[in-house]
């Protein structure tokens, strides 16, 4: 039955992801690879959250790097300047971002399509400008150092430690998202995407659920931002920049919209690919562009859904 098939796909997918995270270190020769893997994980967490908004609820955001940046800077500023314990700073950052997203979401999400894209773009740019300008607090364009993450006196240092932490966080994010998608709330998100008019008439308060999707996805980004700040030990406004927002959206679309694991695949490929493409030297960006365009033409639904459809056809 489809129900059981779905449950299996869900736990099966989680197990497969856990296995990949567990086995991957065997293929990572040195710390540089671990660093790339950590960045893959952090981007994947943002994309899993962003996919709830874009892929499932059908709302675009070109400003999520702003939330990532706010999370990162909340952790940086609160621990470095105010001496807060890192876990508390992380929670405070996530809560602050949730509140901000909640306040911004209602007016912004009244807009649709291109207008929504413009509004979220503006939101992201404003956040990045604020981080750039608040020099006494954030160090401005030069960035600021961030103390390590200490948990109950245990200091988390080293790329390998961070690999396991981020791996765990990613599994947690995927698990939370899968639960949400398979719940009435997740169906309400997808209903927004399918037909807002029909969603309203079956009793879904569309404004409320759009806000909910926006806030949840912003919190995912903020937590990833906090973890990034402690992992990197240094944050700059680049993390909150417009281009990062575009990268996140590209990863979601590339991996496959409305697919939790697709978001992970998209983040993995597009984070690792530039490292691999450095072999092309000056032509690196051209090669990346060719890969992007080629993938979207050959796999218009995104990598994971298209590949899944292809394997199903072969199996038959």
């Amino acid at each position: 039955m489809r129900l059981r098939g779905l449950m299996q796909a869900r736990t099966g997918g989680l197990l497969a992801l856990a296995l990949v995270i567990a086995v991957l270190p065997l293929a990572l020769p040195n710390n540089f690879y671990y660093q790339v893997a950590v960045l893959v994980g952090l981007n994947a967490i943002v994309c899993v959250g962003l996919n709830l908004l874009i892929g499932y609820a059908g709302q675009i955001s070109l400003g999520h790097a702003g939330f990532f940046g706010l999370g990162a800077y909340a952790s940086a500023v609160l621990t470095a300047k105010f001496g807060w314990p890192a876990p508390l700073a992380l929670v405070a950052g996530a809560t602050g971002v949730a509140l901000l997203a909640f306040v911004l979401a209602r007016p912004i999400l009244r807009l649709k399509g291109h207008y929504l894209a413009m509004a979220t773009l503006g939101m992201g740019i404003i956040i990045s400008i604020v981080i750039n300008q608040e020099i006494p607090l954030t160090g401005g364009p030069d960035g600021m150092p961030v103390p390590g993450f200490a948990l109950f006196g245990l200091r988390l240092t080293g790329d390998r430690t961070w690999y396991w932490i981020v791996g765990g966080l990613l599994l947690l994010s995927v698990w939370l998202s899968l639960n949400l998608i398979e719940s009435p709330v997740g169906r309400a998100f997808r209903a927004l995407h399918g037909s807002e008019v029909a969603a309203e008439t079956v009793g879904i308060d569309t404004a409320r659920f759009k806000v909910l999707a926006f806030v949840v996805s912003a919190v995912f980004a903020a937590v990833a931002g906090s973890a990034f700040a402690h992992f990197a030990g240094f944050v700059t406004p680049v993390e909150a920049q417009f281009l990062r927002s575009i990268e996140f959206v590209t990863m979601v679309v590339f991996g496959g919209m409305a697919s939790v694991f697709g978001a992970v695949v998209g983040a993995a490929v597009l984070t690792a690919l530039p490292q691999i493409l450095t072999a092309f030297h000056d032509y690196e960006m051209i090669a990346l562009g060719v890969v992007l365009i080629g993938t979207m033409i050959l796999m218009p639904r995104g990598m994971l859904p298209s590949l899944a459809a292809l394997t199903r056809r072969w199996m038959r």
Partner: protein
Amino acid sequence: MLSVDRLRKEFGGVQAVVEVSFAIEAGRIHSIIGPNGAGKTTLFNLVNGLYAPSGGRVSFLGCDVTGLRPYELAARGMARTFQNLQVFFNMSALENVMVGCHLKSDTRLLPSMLGWPSIARGDRATRARAVELLHEVGLDAWVDADAAAMPYGALKRLEIARALAAEPKLLLLDEPAAGLNPTETREIDRLIQRVAAAGVTVLLVEHDMRLVMDVSDRIIVLNFGRKLAEGTAQEVRRNPEVIAAYLGTAAAQGAGSRHA
């Protein structure tokens, strides 16, 4: 159950609905008929809250509900289907109907994300109910089908199943038989009568006259946004103004002289 008082809607300079009043009794099947562009769907959108009226009042179950949003009316027991389908094409037939159960579902965020057993239990019950509803509208063969892969006639019935999932007191059906062949229309006819027999009040907009005359307890006729006539099928059929609106004045005079 539902009463509409001097309801008006203007789009720019166009008067789509002009001072329309009527009342609907519980447990009956009422129909709204009228030529193309008479304002039937606009009237539905006003009653259902998709449009805000330019004037007038709508009351439902004894409360003034003018200006309430569709989701608020859904919570009070009003459901509807659409003339030009509004199906969730990104879901399966089953999921479409499960979304219809939204109002009775547990939509707390944290328990949903943490996958609490109560959420899963509620979902199993919703799923069973949705399967039952799909059976009721005769879509057993399509339960697991993607809505995007379903034929038009099946989608019409899927919308009815989704609307029934909310266990409405009043069901608005906007041209449920449009685009269907005679056999399918007869099935819809029987379905509407079953729904009404189960105690759901039905308000129907329909072009298929056979269907309307068959099932309706009362008929309201609209023309150019105004209420032209109201009565039983017999009364409406004999009304010269109605005949004029549908067939032209000459035919009405002809009909009138034959009666004389």
